[in-house]
């Protein structure tokens, strides 16, 4: 029943399909900026640092070393889709690593069973996180911050600081650390190899991606994060999803601990909580990529862009890297979130305008001028 004139006005509102006329958006710079940065790192450090492009110089190291961070980043990402923050993931990963070592050191249980017990303990903590957030209605930020301290206390109770070497068996370690493949790169004499845990990490990444983007459950999770009440009224069990995502998060964090147990083996106090930051940074950096919201592949790209950047800087400035690394990570997080909030601000403005049922033309300009 609308007049043709009205239709014309409303058609003028083509925000969603805003055709990317600028060179920036045509190159996808707004969506793939991290990839461009990654390529820039490869070109710059590849030219300036001889060992950067060598397999055993930095490629293998970065690819495998960052699986732990990637798992923690996914652990942070999963509950974030339902708008729940899990700050206890670092502590949970440390707990898993400690339990594996402790069981190996003090019992005769098979070490594989020890790993399962470790994961079980992580699931319990994730369940309690969920209980506090869903049933007690404590803000997830506070709940998991508190839980991370509780877990830290449990860790200290089990063990007094310093490192603990469970002398994990070769069988156990090779389950994760053994090579999937290994061959000599012709002409260079350097061996190309990737460990199994790299493959496990990849598989888990694909599974998380599949669940979030290709199942109704994933859709429901993002809906819960987008507007919990609207999601609940659409028949979605938002409480169960939030709860489940916190349990899943703890499982992923526990797996990060296991990866470390295969890779390095020894529990040290430096593992765990300090890894929270790079994981969170990667998720938010990743959220500015591809889809403009937290997503798996954006997170993967972010983890490796940061890692290769730090590696390159480390090669170039080996002495300064100790302070450059946190500076680099910190600035990346700030810049990424600043960009993301700018997009969010635009969205919020749009929503406000919509809420006021204002004219569509206004939306149009704000989106273009912002």
């Amino acid at each position, binding site marked *: 029943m609308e007049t043709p004139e009205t239709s014309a006005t409303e058609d003028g509102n083509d925000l969603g399909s805003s055709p990317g006329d600028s060179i920036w958006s045509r190159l996808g710079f707004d969506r793939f900026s991290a990839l461009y940065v990654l390529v820039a790192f490869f070109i710059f450090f590849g030219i300036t640092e001889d060992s950067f492009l060598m397999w055993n110089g930095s490629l293998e190291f970065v690819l495998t070393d960052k699986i732990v961070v990637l798992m923690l980043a996914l652990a942070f990402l999963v509950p974030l889709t339902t708008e729940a923050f899990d700050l206890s993931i670092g502590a949970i990963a440390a707990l898993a690593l400690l339990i594996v070592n402790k069981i190996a050191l003090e019992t005769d249980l098979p070490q594989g069973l020890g790993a399962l017990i470790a994961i079980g303990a992580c699931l319990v903590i994730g369940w309690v996180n969920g209980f506090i957030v869903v049933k007690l209605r404590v803000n997830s930020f506070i709940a998991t911050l508190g839980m991370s301290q509780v877990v830290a206390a449990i860790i200290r109770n089990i063990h007094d600081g310093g490192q603990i070497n469970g002398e994990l068996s070769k069988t156990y370690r090779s389950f994760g650390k053994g090579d999937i493949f290994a061959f000599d790169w012709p002409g260079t004499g350097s061996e190309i190899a990737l460990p199994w845990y790299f493959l496990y990490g990849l598989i888990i990444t694909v599974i998380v991606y599949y669940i979030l983007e290709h199942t109704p459950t994933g859709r429901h999770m993002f809906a819960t994060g987008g507007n919990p009440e609207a999601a609940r*009224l*659409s028949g979605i069990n938002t409480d169960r999803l939030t709860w489940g995502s916190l349990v899943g998060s703890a499982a992923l964090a526990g797996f990060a601990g296991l990866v470390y147990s295969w890779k390095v083996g020894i529990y040290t106090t430096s593992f765990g909580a300090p890894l929270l930051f790079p994981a969170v940074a990667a998720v938010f950096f990743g959220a500015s990529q591809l889809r403009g919201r937290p997503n798996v592949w954006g997170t993967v790209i972010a983890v490796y862009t940061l890692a290769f950047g730090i590696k390159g800087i480390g090669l170039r400035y080996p002495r300064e890297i100790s302070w450059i690394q946190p500076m680099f990570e910190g600035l990346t997080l700030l810049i990424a979130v600043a960009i993301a909030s700018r997009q969010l601000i635009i969205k919020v403005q749009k929503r406000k305008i919509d809420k*006021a049922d204002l004219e569509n033309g206004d939306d149009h300009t704000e989106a273009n001028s912002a």
Partner: protein
Amino acid sequence: MGSLLKIHELTKIFPGQVALDEVDLEIETGSTHALVGQNGSGKSTLIKVLCGFHQPTGESSASYYPQSIMDTPSLDEPVELRLGDGKAAANAGIRFVHQDLGLVDSFNAIENISMGVGYTKRFGGAIDWRADRKRAEEGLATLGFPDIDVNIPVGLLAPSQKTAVAIARALHDWDKGASLLVLDEPTASLPGADVERLFTAVRRLQEKGVAILYVSHHLDEVFEIADTATILRDGKRIATLPINELNHDKMIELMIGHTLVKRQQASREFIGSEKGLIIQGLTGGTLAGIDLHVEPGEIVGVAGIMGSGREMLVPLITGQTPSDQGAVAVDGLQIQNYSPKSAINAGMAFLSADRYSQGVIAIQSVRNNLTLSDVRRNWNSFKLDHKAEKVEADQWIEKLDVKTPTSETPIGSLSGGNQQKVLFGRSLRLEPSVLVLDEPTRGIDVGAKEEIHQLVDQASKDNAAVLVASTDTDELVRLSHRVVVMVNGQISEELTGDQMTVENIERAQLQSQEQKTKVGAHGNA
């Protein structure tokens, strides 16, 4: 009465769209001037240029006649007003109350008013709360709201009271020359009875001689409160007329450019089916035990003022709010473990009153919003078939005539009417046996409103039992086969056929209110 503000040939061009096309507007001193038009007609752009949010395009000019209501007589010399300059507008005595009010819900009225206008400081910079309290209380009393508790967070106040706080803040210095109050959709989120309370405040301002520019979708309000109306359509001023030269139909015609065909339901016999929606003894909140049966194919309207229980009915039926007592059955089966999920599984679909906070997921696409209640439909037992989902979304977009560039556009960027159509799609897609609607066209313009009404008609033709709770009495008359009126948490009256008129419904709502008052008086004596 002389002129207060004159705007001459105001034009605003956005890339690809002329929002305002040489619009003239003249507001008289002390008048209440309504600005009406559909979404996209330019009225909000005009307000935004006036308050300095947008800059006008090209040669526009405006002038105002400085005056102080309290003492000095108006000057005869107009002063130029620079459009698109918020400060200049403020100096000219123009005050704004925007639709979202801009209040901080967790602050009380004193803090909210002080926050906007500056705290009264004592020696040493400490806030003089006593002076601020006085200012708040006096401001609210002047508006006819002396009963507002200035100590409690404004989030706990009734919607009309919140609007009063916002007006008090805007007009805190009216004795120093505020002469024009712009009210932008002040009733968009107000329940019916609260609108009346707000009008008492507006009338007080009229008595004080404050001119008001009143922007609203609700034409009834315009006729009740305004003395002049300017109608915009597609950025052009169509007419400025004294209100007594207009009527409802004439105004709609000017707004949409053609006449609107009025429809009403054919009368319908109660067939005594055991299917549809059956509510027994439903109790909770302000609802004190309701029995109601809506048959398949029937549309039952629910009327009632705020606090009558009408506003609780839909949340309780849908499981949004847990009920204390009672049962709801869909097609003869009682719903167990009541929750929105179990209600949907039982064959119910519903739309909540607050589209923004309870309906749409603003940042997600039209497609995701449309399929939310049953995402699984496009699950091909291996993965979500995004392609099939897109095809389905496109079909619904066409069927519901949703104005959106693509199915992937964030729903938040659509107009309210189009958002509501998508939410209708979300419900109708479930092919529900029971459709429950709360304020289905609140904040939606006239054209889209009729389209939504036709969707409701169609749902009933498809044999759904439809329940519509609304504060819009015209809407109830337009849609319903019968209307039940709620008072004190119970159904006080049922109106059908010729009895079902706007006058009768409103009388039933208010008459019962009088009885209630009488009973109360009796009880006190």
